[in-house]
């Protein structure tokens, strides 16, 4: 076919140029990074090292606290055997400690798995945060599990207690001041039928379920015949609250 510089054909080169120009301009236009840029170099690496070192220390301290509490409990039981009154008080202490999450427990329940999307590369127009699990997602699931009558909950083996807060530093989720890494396993002892019912109810966790569908964020619910949840290993600092009025 002979190319003619008249009629419609005359405009084709202009259109092609406009298209190319658009592409070039588009390439020029940079989208902001999805998260704050990291500062490379020694500062960053040593930061990672410091965190690892502190976490090792944290792990050791929790271990010692767990052992000391076990020793104390054993000692108290021995003492309690001596008099009726001590026995009674010790039984009440044991009950209160179970309520507080200071003792390891077992029972049936559910395990909820939450994980960031497996999609590692997304279009610039997309919001990267849609593909990640956030601290408020964990909070919403934990609250819903309490609502479903759960009796004990742990996230990645960190027991949820009255003073627990689930927060984030940048994209890192912290529970009981302990850094969690995905996948997040939320284990809850309770009636598995009720728990699963509430978790699957479309009225709840709408946002997570929607992101699971659209962005392949993982949200999985599995019934468990027997779960074992560890005791809380941190302290309960009480400095301001006093008994009675």
């Amino acid at each position, binding site marked *: 076919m002979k190319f003619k510089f008249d009629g419609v054909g005359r*405009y084709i080169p202009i259109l092609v140029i406009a298209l190319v120009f658009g592409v070039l301009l588009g390439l020029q236009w940079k989208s902001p990074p999805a998260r704050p840029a990291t500062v490379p170099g020694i500062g960053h690496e040593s930061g990672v090292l410091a965190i690892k070192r502190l976490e090792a220390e944290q792990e050791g301290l929790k271990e010692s606290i767990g052992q000391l509490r076990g020793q104390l409990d054993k000692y108290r039981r021995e003492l309690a055997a001596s008099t009726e009154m001590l026995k009674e008080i010790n039984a009440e202490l044991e009950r209160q400690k179970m309520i507080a999450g200071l003792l390891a427990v077992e029972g049936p329940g559910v395990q909820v798995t939450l994980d960031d999307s497996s999609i590692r590369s997304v279009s610039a127009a997309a919001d990267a945060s849609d593909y990640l699990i956030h601290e408020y997602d964990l909070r919403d699931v934990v609250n819903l599990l309490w609502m479903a009558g759960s009796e004990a909950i742990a996230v990645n083996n960190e027991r949820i207690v009255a003073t627990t807060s689930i927060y984030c530093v940048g994209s890192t989720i912290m529970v009981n001041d302990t850094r969690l890494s995905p996948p997040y396993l939320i284990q809850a002892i309770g009636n598995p039928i009720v728990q699963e019912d509430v978790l699957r109810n479309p009225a709840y966790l709408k946002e997570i379920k929607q992101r699971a569908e659209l962005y392949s964020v993982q949200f999985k619910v599995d019934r468990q015949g027997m779960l074992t949840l560890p005791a809380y290993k941190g302290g309960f600092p009480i400095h301001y609250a006093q008994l009675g009025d």
Partner: protein
Amino acid sequence: MKSRSAQLSLTILCFLLGLLLVAQFRTQQMSGNSLLAASSDDQLVIISSLVENNARLRGEMEALEKQLNEYQQATGRARLEALVEELNKVRIINGLVEVSGFGVEVSLDGPIGVLDVQDLINELRNAGAEALTINGERLTLYSVIASTEDGVMTINGTQLSRPYILQAIGDAETMETALLRGGGLIATLTRNYEGLIVGVIKRERMVLPVYKGDIKFVYASLIE
């Protein structure tokens, strides 16, 4: 070509098409939640929270060692006192005893969602709240702010009416700062809810009642 304006719009269309094409093909890498992906600022926050937490854990360890020592040396009465003291501390944490102390009072008047009130409670706990109530109902680990089908907020099964008053015993300074900081939770809430009035007052002394419900275990049992 019928008119110059038709040519012009076709040209613009092609130009936009080019832009869109790029937007479509340009991708961003997801860095995920790894430590190396955290910014230096975030690392610093993680480091300082770990340092603080480890100090608290060391304090707890020393207290436990002291307790163990006391048990071993003390005689009848002292042992009983140590046991009762430990019991009372856990009761305070559990919300199963009346407590008093300094703290903050947060009032919420206007529209607000259940999850946001739950976030506010999380924020107060994060700032070291030791005992909490909402409209006079003591919060326990197991308490959840929920809502009835008609949208009435409930706590421990009791319906709540506006204004919602949260009382928290703890370090008032820390709690107030955490709530009121720029870009903090209250700033976000007042931006998101038109007509929501939030007040934060430091209180010299508050008395928080005991949780009136019963906490029972049907499914969980102690590991022997």
